[in-house]
């Protein structure tokens, strides 16, 4: 067996052990199995990374076929894994950040009754996500795709006794399923054209087979995009992610920040050849990315639940990644994914620590003054929020976001509108990050701290904070320092971004100014002059506007009124199945006929005699 196999196999083994025997194991044993499997997988992945980096071969590919899954007619689908640099980046994040989150969860979920079930589901998730990024053909990718959807469902609804959690889990699964179905139809189209599901084969054959910008390739690309939109919570399929915060914080960190939601980004990056053949699809991708980042960013500005702020923030950052993909900045999108994983996971884990410390308080306006009470959490959270806001030069987020913004303007497919929306988004992001820090950690304490987080919680936070700051140093803007480690790693897999002109200085400066402006505004509004906010909250127009943003731009309301309610009504009306009434009518007609005919059986002898006579006459007439 290949070493590649161990990486997803270990979490799978963890899942099997925990799901079958978890209840009879002690807490420590469960923690060992659950977290240990992912840690070992992380170790193996790091070894593989080192091999890649040392080898220096950017186009290196490791393949391994486990068994022939199914073959039917012209179709042959093996369970085949194919790891190249792109997969490796994702694998590293999944296992490494995953391991940290698992370690965090050993302490975070310790008092929960479903301890073993939690780790079983988390392990299954890690396995499924790894299969997704390691898959060598689209069907196996789809298996991982659906698998992560399943685990997300199980984990969002982890505390199943509250109906709202189950509703959130259902919503997540259903909305992503819509995307999945679109992906499936795209796969069918692709198979009909190319006759294979093998990813390498598709990427190789597509340019020759499809005429550029033909309707069919645009359709395929758009369908794949739709699949990505569902999983990555882009407009209009983004409504499930804020509600998914009903799950435990480690779940939000792992699934809804670092990994599952980035599956869409992976898919588009992986199938970049298809997108490159269809400029229309690229434009749509970029537009959707831009719109999403603005809509979600605005919503994040007014949320009161700390996790919902972070959820909308995640949607917004995913919008940046889609924007990057749409303009052809492939490695920039992956770089942003890389840094985003660190700081977003950090933020979610720290938020979880805060929530726990304040005894399940979610409302930021009831927190405050935690700066001195929870120092480690404060400083790590600050690092994460700074990275999110893209504080210039000292945070990882700056380097990745700056790259995206630069390409939004200067790439072949980029234009000023996209760039401006990115800048506006940066401003908004900085604003709400500052808001978050100020409201939660500064000011006066409104809720007392009941529990101080222990070592297993703070150490992962510190590690993630370290990476939130340093991970960006892998890739500097070209005019500051010529370090291109990250895109160098990916250059064998993803095409380089073609730019229209070289100068980045003006754009960079604008981005920095936007960030600083956002921070300044947030500081003013929430620290210096909170009275202004009070006045806005009372004013009718601004209060309505605030409510609109709070409700996520009313997407939920629209969906509920126009899709959910009519659907439920229609199905309920037909519950007893209108075809049944057809057959019921048939039965009733038969019964009526029976009633009518039996009126001839009236017991009167003379009636019968007449009947016999008539019958006889009839027969005689026939004979004659």
């Amino acid at each position, binding site marked *: 067996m290949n070493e590649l196999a161990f990486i997803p196999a270990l979490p799978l083994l963890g899942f099997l052990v925990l*799901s079958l025997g978890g*209840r009879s194991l002690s807490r420590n044993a469960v923690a060992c199995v659950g977290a240990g499997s992912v840690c070992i997988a992380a170790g193996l992945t790091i070894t593989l990374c080192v091999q890649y980096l040392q080898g220096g071969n950017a186009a290196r590919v490791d393949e391994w076929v486990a*068994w*022939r*899954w*199914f*073959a*039917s*007619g*012209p*179709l042959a689908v093996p369970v085949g894994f194919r790891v190249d640099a792109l997969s490796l980046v994702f694998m590293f994040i999944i296992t490494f950040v995953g391991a940290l989150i698992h370690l965090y969860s050993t302490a975070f979920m310790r008092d929960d009754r479903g301890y073993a*079930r939690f780790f079983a589901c988390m392990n299954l998730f890690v396995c499924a996500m790894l299969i997704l990024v390691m898959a060598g053909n689209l*069907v196996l990718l*789809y*298996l991982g795709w*659906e*698998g992560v959807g*399943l685990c997300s*469902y*199980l984990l969002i*609804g982890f505390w*199943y*006794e*509250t*109906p709202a959690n*189950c*509703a959130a*889990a*259902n919503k997540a*699964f*259903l909305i992503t*399923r*819509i995307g*999945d*179905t679109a992906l*499936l*139809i795209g796969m*069918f*189209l692709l*198979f*009909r054209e190319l006759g294979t599901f093998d990813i390498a084969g598709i990427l190789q054959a597509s340019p020759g087979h499809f005429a550029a910008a033909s309707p069919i390739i645009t359709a395929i690309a758009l369908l794949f995009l739709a699949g990505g939109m569902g999983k990555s919570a882009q407009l209009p399929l983004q409504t499930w992610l804020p509600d998914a915060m009903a799950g435990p914080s480690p779940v939000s960190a792992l699934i809804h920040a670092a990994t599952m939601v980035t599956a869409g980004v992976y898919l588009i990056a992986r199938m970049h050849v298809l997108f490159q053949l269809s400029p229309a699809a690229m434009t749509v991708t970029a537009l959707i990315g831009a719109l999403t980042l603005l809509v979600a960013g605005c919503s994040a500005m007014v949320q009161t639940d700390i996790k919902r702020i972070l959820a909308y923030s995640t949607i917004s950052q995913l919008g940046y990644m889609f924007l990057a993909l749409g303009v052809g900045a492939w490695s920039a999108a992956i770089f942003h994914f890389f840094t985003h994983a660190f700081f977003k996971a950090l933020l979610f884990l720290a938020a979880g620590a805060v929530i726990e410390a304040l005894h399940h308080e979610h409302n930021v306006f009831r927190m405050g003054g935690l700066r001195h009470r929870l120092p480690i959490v404060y400083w790590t959270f600050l690092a994460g929020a700074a990275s999110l806001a893209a504080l210039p030069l000292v945070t990882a987020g700056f380097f990745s976001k700056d790259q995206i913004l630069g390409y939004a303007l200067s790439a072949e497919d980029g234009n000023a509108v996209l760039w401006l929306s990115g800048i506006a988004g940066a401003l908004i992001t900085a604003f709400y990050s500052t808001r978050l820090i100020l409201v939660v950690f500064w000011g006066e304490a409104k809720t007392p701290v009941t529990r101080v987080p222990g070592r297993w919680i703070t150490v992962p936070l510190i590690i993630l904070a370290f990476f939130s700051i340093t991970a960006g140093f892998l890739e500097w803007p070209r005019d500051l320092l010529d370090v291109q480690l990250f895109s160098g790693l990916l250059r064998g897999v993803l095409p380089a971004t073609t730019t229209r002109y070289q100068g980045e200085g003006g754009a960079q400066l604008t981005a920095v100014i936007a960030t600083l402006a956002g921070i300044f505004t947030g500081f003013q509004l929430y620290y210096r002059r909170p009275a202004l906010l009070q006045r806005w909250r009372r004013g009718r127009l601004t209060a309505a506007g605030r409510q609109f943003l709070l409700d996520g731009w009313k997407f939920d309301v629209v969906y509920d009124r126009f899709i959910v309610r009519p659907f*439920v009504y*229609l*199905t*309920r009306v*037909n*519950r007893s*199945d209108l*075809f*049944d009434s*057809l*057959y019921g009518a048939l039965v009733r007609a038969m019964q009526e006929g029976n009633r009518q005919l039996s009126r001839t059986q009236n017991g009167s002898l003379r009636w019968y005699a007449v009947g016999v006579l008539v019958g006889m006459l009839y027969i005689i007439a026939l004979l004659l």
Partner: protein
Amino acid sequence: MILIEMIGILLGGGILCWLTAGWNSAYVKWIAMTAVAADLLIAAVLFAHFSAGGMPQTATAPTAMSWLVDYRRSWIPSLGVSLHLSMDGLSLLLVLLTFFLGLLSVLSSWREIKERQGFYYFNLLWTLGGIAGVFLATDLFLFYFFWEVMLVPMYLLILLWGDSNRRYAAYKFFLFTQAGGLLMLLSILALYFIHGQQGGGYSFDYSDLLHTTPPPAVARWILMGFLAAFAVKLPVVPFHNWLPDAHSEAPTAGSLILAGLLLKTGAYGMIRFILPFFPQASAAIAPWAMGFGVIGILYGALLAFAQTDLKRLIAYTSVSHMGFVLLGIFAMREMALHGVVLQLLAHGISTGALFAVAGMIKQRLHTRDIGQMGGLWKAMPSMGGMAMIFAMASLGLPLLGNFIAEFLVLLGAFPQHVTLVVIASTGLVFSALYSLRMMTKVFFGPAVAPAAVDIGGSGALRDMDGREWLILGLLCIGIVLLGLFPQPIIDMIKEQMLRL
């Protein structure tokens, strides 16, 4: 010879059960179990033998039938009726499924049936025998005979051991199926007479009638006759109304057999008789049939979503899944047909399992109304886990058998008719809707205290015991194996699907 033995074990075992009941009713269950287990063993050995490479090569002319096992004996020579049983890859798989689900249905009736056990197991075994006969018969008269044999004991099962509304459900089931069956009889006789008139001598045998070519207009009507019977059985949407009632009022084993096997006889009939006998007429009605398949997928899913009776919900999911089968059969492409056979097996296992779970819940809570259920995961986590696996299978999660089946059907049918397949794919979203609704309402949510509960020693709802673990465990292994290693199945049916 072995084929007649397989059926004979079941029929004889049934009679033995009935007789033993008068003497000592405790042994009846064991006799039934032994009979079905013996048959399962035989079928498994046959499967292993043939999938390991004992397949006869089709070096002969493409019109010759190549059976794996063939048995023929003369019965009524003057009418052209013979006792002709044959098995090929498709029948072998379905027979294997029959005995597997048969064993599990015997196991699930273990504690549920307390009165007239002998007669019950007699009916159960004779239904199984009838189903096995349907899958093996290649003489049309014999086929019709077994068709009726599988119908009457099933009717008795529902009527005598069913739930509160059993009379209505049993009558409905009988009348629907019988009406279809009589139309099929007309078609068989028409074929018989046409064959005789064309000079081949009067015969009911499959291979003889295969080479009859009735004139095209007549062929279409004869096809309709056959289709009537199989469409009611499958079921196709306008004729599906017997299914929810029969499935929900039947005892657990009855539901298992109904959903797991009886529906497959309709599909089998279509593949075995309609497609080979009437290729041009089938091609002519194919778009309509595929349309009805898609309607079935969507209609079944939408209705399943709205139900409040757990077994009725699962019954409508069967309608939905069988829509895929109809779509696949009339796509008439190799990949789609592979998907169809896989769907037959996977659906049998997954829906059978769901009915088993529903039966277990019913035994504990004495209700089928999901409004009165909730939060059952807390008390019965293992059952919840198992139900989750099968609910996921029902919605087509990869790794479990149903995904590959539905995937192949859709992929195979795609070049034939793009729009219909796109619409059918939206059925996947609806299947997620009803599966999740089922899980949420039954297992998740706050724990609802039910009125009358079958309590174990601890006073709480009893989780699964050993026998129930065995049933669900075997089904679970089955569906996962189908999901991971479907290749042996596909290999087995590859030859004949190519021929179609």
